[in-house]
């Protein structure tokens, strides 16, 4: 089974802090990590490979330093890695990103399954996964929380898709694209041998020319949305600390909430 996992390198938001004086993001020294949801995607890809054979290729689009994310994926057990990087891709929104990634998936060769995390924690859009499947014109199942069965011969799979109320059981032919949620697995840690392999592994680097993309559909040109402005949200007003023993604070709080919202 050939699996392509699309990942993104994101700033570790646990490290992101607001400068209280300027009220802007402090980005220096913020570590970059693999988007947490993509870790589940990588893990699921590796598990499928371990069960059915084949290979796992990891693709990311980003600046040159996104190579670190790819090496980490290899240390976890991915076989191949491709970095999609080109100045021409700068300024891509989710439309242009999913177009570019879909071209990379096509170039990466025969695949049975594309796996993405449900969304990235920096943009939170959840659009790129479905976007790639739309460009590739393959079926998609989003928010997958369990792969119940894969029939590699008949080329279809049955999965559980998380909804607000519970889940749906969906059958899809292969190739298809799934986006996965946290519930699907617990990602492993890298192994030492994996880390050694990752250090030496060759990372393929593809630019706009390699992907044969339409220049009007990539980067800023290919992005229908533009950022008009960025601002820091109104900070929440300084709260009020209620004092007193358990009984007193409870009475105060009930009064406050009653008048405000109950």
């Amino acid at each position, binding site marked *: 089974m050939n699996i392509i996992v699309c990942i993104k390198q994101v700033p570790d*938001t*646990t490290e*992101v802090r607001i400068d209280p004086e300027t009220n*802007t*993001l402090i980005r*220096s020294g913020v570590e970059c990590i693999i988007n947490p949801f993509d870790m589940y995607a990588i893990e699921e890809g590796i598990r499928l490979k371990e069960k059915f054979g084949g290979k796992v290729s990891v693709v990311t689009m980003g600046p040159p330093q996104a190579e670190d994310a790819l090496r980490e994926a290899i240390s976890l057990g991915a076989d191949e890695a491709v970095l999609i990087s080109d*100045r021409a891709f*700068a300024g891509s929104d*989710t*439309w242009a990103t999913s177009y570019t990634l879909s071209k990379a998936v096509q170039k990466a060769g025969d695949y049975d399954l594309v796996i993405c995390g449900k969304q990235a924690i*920096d*943009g*939170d859009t*959840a*659009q790129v*996964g*479905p*976007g790639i499947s*739309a460009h590739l014109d393959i*079926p*998609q199942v*989003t*928010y997958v929380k369990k792969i119940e069965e894969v029939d590699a011969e008949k080329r279809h799979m*049955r999965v*559980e*898709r*998380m909804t*607000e*109320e*519970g889940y*749906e*059981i*969906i*059958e899809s*032919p292969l190739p298809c694209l799934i986006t996965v949620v*946290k*519930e699907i697995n617990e990602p492993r840690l890298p192994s030492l041998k994996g880390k050694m392999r990752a250090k030496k592994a060759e990372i393929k680097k593809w630019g706009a020319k390699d992907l044969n993309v339409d220049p009007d559909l990539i980067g*800023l040109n290919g992005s*229908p*949305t*533009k*950022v*008009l*402005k*960025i601002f*820091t*949200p109104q900070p*929440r*007003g300084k*709260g*009020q*600390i*209620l004092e007193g023993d358990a*009984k007193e*604070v*409870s009475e105060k*709080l*009930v009064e*406050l909430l009653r008048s405000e*919202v109950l």
Partner: protein
Amino acid sequence: MSIRVINEKCTGCKLCIKACPFAAIDVVKKKAVIAMDKCNLCGACIESCKFDAIVLTKISPSEIDFAKKIEQHKGVWVFCEQKNGVVQSVGYELLGKGRELADTLGVDLCGVLLGENIKAEAQKVIHRGANKVYIVDSPKLKHYQSEPYSKVLIKLIKEHKPEIVLCGATSIGRSLISRVAISIHAGLTADCTGLDIDKKERLLLQTRPAFGGNIMATIICPNHRPQMATVRHKVMKEAEVNNHHRGKIIESSFDDDTYSSRTNLLDVVEEIEETVNLTEADIIVSGGRGLQNPENFQLIEELAKVLGGAVGASRAAVDAGWKTYSHQVGQTGKTVCPKIYIACGISGQIQHLVGMQSSDVIVAINKDQHAPIFNVATYGIVGNLFEIVPELTKRFREVLKK
């Protein structure tokens, strides 16, 4: 769009470096240099520059050509998601906002409803303010499946050319609308918390949080139509019901190929939860590591029950196995915005805060007065939750007479 530094005006003062949220600017030889691979053209640097040394060209001539076609697109659409034949409340919320936008633009507000036997529901959409409802009624559309739903919606959009399409940021909406936007090369902005119209340009101003709510961005879609946006449940206020409101129901049907799906829905499983759906709840009581063991979650559940609210949990509590993942609030869990959020024994790691900081009122109960949760709390109580929570439950029970 493009951005450039006018070197003659630039003094190398570095104010723009501080202003740039993307760390895209550097000063080299006393002149600002913008790294285009990092720049998002947000314009924050332009506002910061005291010397008018940075200029942003908004629309290039070739883009203006393209923009002309935009004139053909009219009307505000709301995709009204249905489950089990019932339009979900997020649809009514979007109709409320959609009405405002349509009135500002002087155009029709239209609902789009896909499903089986949904005519009666279409009437309800009209009573919530829609001028028209496009319905497609077929057994094949009874339950959401990405392919038939996206194919139908694409055909409707291509035929009727709306200028704005709004959709709930639900598990259905997010999956559907991304696929649609790709196919028609439309701009799509996820999880908007604010929608407004730039009257002069007739542009939809879409404001959304990024980086876990640490910054806000206003997004526009100048040259593509329709302008598409998703909005989370509970962010907008529901449109009022007006049974006298009149509107047209326009029914369309398509060939079997349009309804065909490669994926096949085999079963729908509803999981019985002891309390209401987190994202639907007006009141959420959440517990964290401070509860010390799973049995103590009972305190949280009792308070939630008295308040008619839902039970949430921090990642620490979920990872420890005290609550299932469906209760998890925060970055890798659910994002919630209830009217009241009561955090008990939750220290308030940033991953948790991003999932709940847009709640109307936040109450924090924690023994550590320095816990970061107090930074976002409307009301904070420093103390022992094992004493305070039962007392609160008792007090609310008296007041609410439950």
